[in-house]
């Protein structure tokens, strides 16, 4: 049977393509300019139309409300906030809460996701079935359900502050969250911090140096004893020289709640747990697909070099798999960030809850608030994806080398 010739593309599309973008030079440029102009015109019409309609309905518009006093409390703030602060401050509080829960969630989701993927690929029957079971159960239950499960069923069933579980009378676990002693800075704090900073910097630079030396001279170098020594030793020396840098502030139950110490609220714990375990199930599948995409000959080659399974995975397979893993992994990171807006169901004051929720209903400035919120989520997503692309570019470059 003769193979039919490929049919020509439909006339209309071909014509349009020729008229607009198909040709280079000034005609193509003109089409682009006209297109951008049309976009701007449409955008202008939308804004103008909305503004007129709002004015006709006598609905206040504009961004002046951002400097007005918010007048409501927020339960968890990483920057100082009080009721008399402005809506701009509320916006920042919400934004920081969203970023914190996203970053912490992404970290744990990645760790759990990789672990589950490796478990699922493990030759051990039991471990691989546990990994598979985790993925199937977690990704098939709605996220909102999981958030409420952690919040109401797990954390909600913890005892009240007065009956809280305590360790050494300084760590407390109750339905108000986890309360731990806080380190309050004293006179010698600066010297101590400098020593710690130097130790951390050295711990980052040393492995890089060792790696370079390995490539240059072929001599391996044991890094971890040095790093460990520095991390413990330097602060210790500083401690001996400048004296006690911290005093420990132990939380005490007074009245309804704990006074003093630092507290991790149950809303944050529930949201982080739910987001990271849920997204981890998807990341596990992404990682598994990535590792399976690397030819099994690579695994065998590693084994024939005498590397262990762990070394083969870490040094040979995963770097190659990263190229496949990265784009869908980025999607999962973006999903996690956007899903954090479900926080509104359990009262975690994220951006969506305090800004697109409370601020919106207090001020009634729906269009402005939603526009800002959309813009911020878009920006977070674009930055995340840019960072991931940068990482992907580095991997590609090192593979090419």
């Amino acid at each position, binding site marked *: 049977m003769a193979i039919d010739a490929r049919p020509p593309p439909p006339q209309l*599309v071909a014509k*349009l*393509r020729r008229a*607009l*973008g*198909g040709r280079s030079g000034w005609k193509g440029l003109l089409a*682009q300019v006209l*297109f951008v102009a*049309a*976009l701007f015109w*449409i955008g202008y*019409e*939308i804004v103008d*139309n909305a503004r*007129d*309609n*709002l004015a*006709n*309905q*006598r*609905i*206040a518009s504009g961004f002046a409300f951002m400097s007005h006093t918010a*007048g*409501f*409390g*927020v*339960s968890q703030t990483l920057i100082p906030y009080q*009721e008399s602060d402005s809506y701009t401050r509320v916006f920042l509080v919400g934004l920081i809460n969203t970023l914190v829960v996203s970053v912490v969630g992404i970290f744990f989701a990645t760790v759990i996701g990789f672990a589950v993927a490796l478990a699922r690929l493990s030759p051990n029957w039991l471990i691989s079935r546990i990994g598979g079971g985790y993925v199937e159960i977690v990704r098939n239950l709605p996220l909102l359900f999981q958030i409420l499960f952690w919040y*109401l069923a797990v954390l*909600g*069933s913890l005892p*009240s502050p007065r009956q809280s579980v305590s360790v050494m009378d300084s760590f407390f676990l109750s*339905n*108000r969250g986890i309360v731990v002693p806080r380190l309050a800075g004293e006179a010698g704090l600066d010297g101590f911090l400098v020593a710690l900073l130097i130790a951390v910097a050295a711990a980052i630079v040393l492995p890089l140096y060792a790696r370079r030396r390995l490539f240059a001279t072929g001599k391996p170098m044991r890094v971890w004893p040095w790093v460990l020594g520095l991390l413990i030793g330097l602060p210790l020396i500083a401690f001996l020289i400048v004296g006690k840098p911290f005093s420990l502030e132990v939380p005490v139950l*007074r*009245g*309804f*709640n704990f*006074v003093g110490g630092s507290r991790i609220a*149950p*809303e944050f714990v529930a949201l982080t747990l739910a987001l990271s375990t849920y997204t981890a199930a998807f990341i596990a599948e992404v990682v598994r697909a990535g590792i399976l995409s690397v030819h099994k000959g690579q695994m065998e080659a590693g084994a024939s070099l005498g590397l262990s399974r762990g070394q083969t995975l870490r040094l040979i397979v995963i770097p190659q798999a990263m190229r496949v893993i990265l784009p869908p992994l980025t999607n999962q990171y973006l999903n996690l960030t956007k899903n954090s807006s479900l926080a*509104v*169901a*359990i*009262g975690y*004051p994220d951006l969506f*809850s*305090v800004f697109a*929720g*409370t601020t*919106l*209903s*207090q*001020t*009634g400035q*729906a269009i402005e608030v939603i526009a800002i919120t959309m813009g911020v989520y878009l920006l977070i997503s674009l930055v995340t994806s840019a960072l991931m692309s940068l990482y992907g570019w580095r991997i590609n470059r090192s593979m090419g080398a």
Partner: protein
Amino acid sequence: MKRVSIVVALAIAVGLSPQVAGAQNPKAGSTAGAEKKKTTLEIVRENGALSCGVSQGLPGFSAPDDKGNWAGLDVDVCRAIAAAVFDDPSKVKFVPLSAKDRFTALQSGEIDVLSRNTTWTLSRDTSLGVNFAGVSYYDGQGFMAKKSLKVNSALELNGASICVQTGTTNEQNVADYFKGNNMKYEVIAFANADEAVKAYESGRCDVFTSDVSQLYAQRLKLATPADHAVLPEVISKEPLGPLVRHGDDQWFDIVKWTLFALVNAEELGVTQKNVDEMAKSDKPELKRVFGTDGNLGEQLGLTKDWVARIVKATGNYGESFERNVGSGSKLEIARGLNKLWNKGGIMYAPPIR
């Protein structure tokens, strides 16, 4: 690939532009006066039903009963308006709204009237493009706490965790109250009241705060209502009432006077039972109310017998109160401030004349 997507985008843009131009027409019309905008009354009549925004389920004010029919004090306002417009209290489409979404729904025209325990405040009246038609319930904010906490006054709540519904005046009042009394607190805000109450019940918060009427209503939903007590302090004024969009004075009048008709009917002693009898009365006041003298109803854009229609549908304000939140209901809230002005309360309606 890039070029194809540009072509597609342009095609979409071209496809959209007539609509953009079309959307512009009403604006051009209103400025030039060439095209008349439809009034809310006309829209409601055309749709064949009143679209009424209510709460997502607050017993006594607006909640579906065991047969799935919406009932409550706020619901009766919707039914009374429908009765005045259509002579049929069932011609209402109820739209359950969260505290956060209610104003947007009204502004955007999704609903014709919002009757959802909403507090009348200056900023809401001026900046949201809405008009409050009056007060259907005088309320105030209070606190509910577990009896086991042994708290007898809101002034003992220093350091307490407080569950609240987000986007309400309650959230700001509680901030004012604690600041004013130099007390610390932690507020956990939830998107709707049910979630806030659930968190309160699970022990996440020591206290749940809301309008006192709501505290009684929500307490009914708890597993053991008897374990929870409403504290005596009332920390704010919460006049609740229906509201409409700015810019349609006729519709504003209809909603406002429907509310006044309910209150006036109670004052005149007109009830669901005796309304037909009273309509035949020779008293000049009743003749004006029932439209046998003058055309007050028609001035509103309704019919002469509008008050009779309303009272037949829902009863007068007192009847509606007793049935939904008062002694005839599970809530058993005392009339208190909501008694008529001549019976010791502040419920007062301008005369129908």
